[in-house]
């Protein structure tokens, strides 16, 4: 399984903080993202209508990368700390 996390506005809009996705559905980050846009009817708009950063195993990624079972993938809005 892949652990998927959402944060901040994104998690609020989706109404979910985390979910488990079967690795078969998510062999890389792009595929996982695609899977999520089809997960529920309104998710496609929420996920594609705003900038959405990605982290794999707690490291920011900008390119698509391969996933393996047990990976933690997070999606979140641009950060605003400090």
């Amino acid at each position, binding site marked *: 399984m892949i652990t998927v*996390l959402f944060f*901040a506005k994104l998690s609020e809009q989706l109404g979910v903080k985390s979910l488990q996705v079967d690795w078969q559905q998510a062999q890389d980050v792009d595929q996982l993202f695609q899977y999520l846009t089809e997960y529920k009817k309104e998710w496609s708009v929420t996920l594609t209508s705003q900038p959405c950063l990605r*982290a794999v195993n*707690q490291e920011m990624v900008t390119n698509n990368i391969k996933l393996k079972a047990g990976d933690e993938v997070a999606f*979140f*809005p*641009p*950060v605003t*700390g*400090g």
Partner: protein
Amino acid sequence: MISVQQQDFNQQSEYERLRCQSSIGAIVTFTGLVRDINDGYSVSDLCLEHYPGMTEKSLMNIVEQAKSRWNIIASTVIHRVGQLSINDQIVFVGIASQHRGDAFAACEFIMDYLKTEAPFWKKETMESGESKWVDARESDHKTRSKWVM
């Protein structure tokens, strides 16, 4: 020293921790505070969400980058999370070096990277009672780009 914490921090204690060695000639500190006005509207309080685990990693990585570029004798990064009020301390970055140039550059570099890379998100409650997630600033990305070698 890197810490992500709910509780407040004390300026003097953090300063004294940085001042521990007699080879130190310069200490630069940055403290970020909750302002009463943001983007023109009055703020009453602020909630800081973060990505536990990744925040610490991200801050450590930023500090390592700073250490590879400048001579740093000691460094501290503290970022608070949770519920905060106007004038509360949010973030502290302190750098101790032999010379001031290193301390200034490293401190500003860490803040500029923290602002664009560390997974913290602010949600402001306005005086009207409404709350909204703070938008990322384009200017923070511009500021960061000045450090690209």
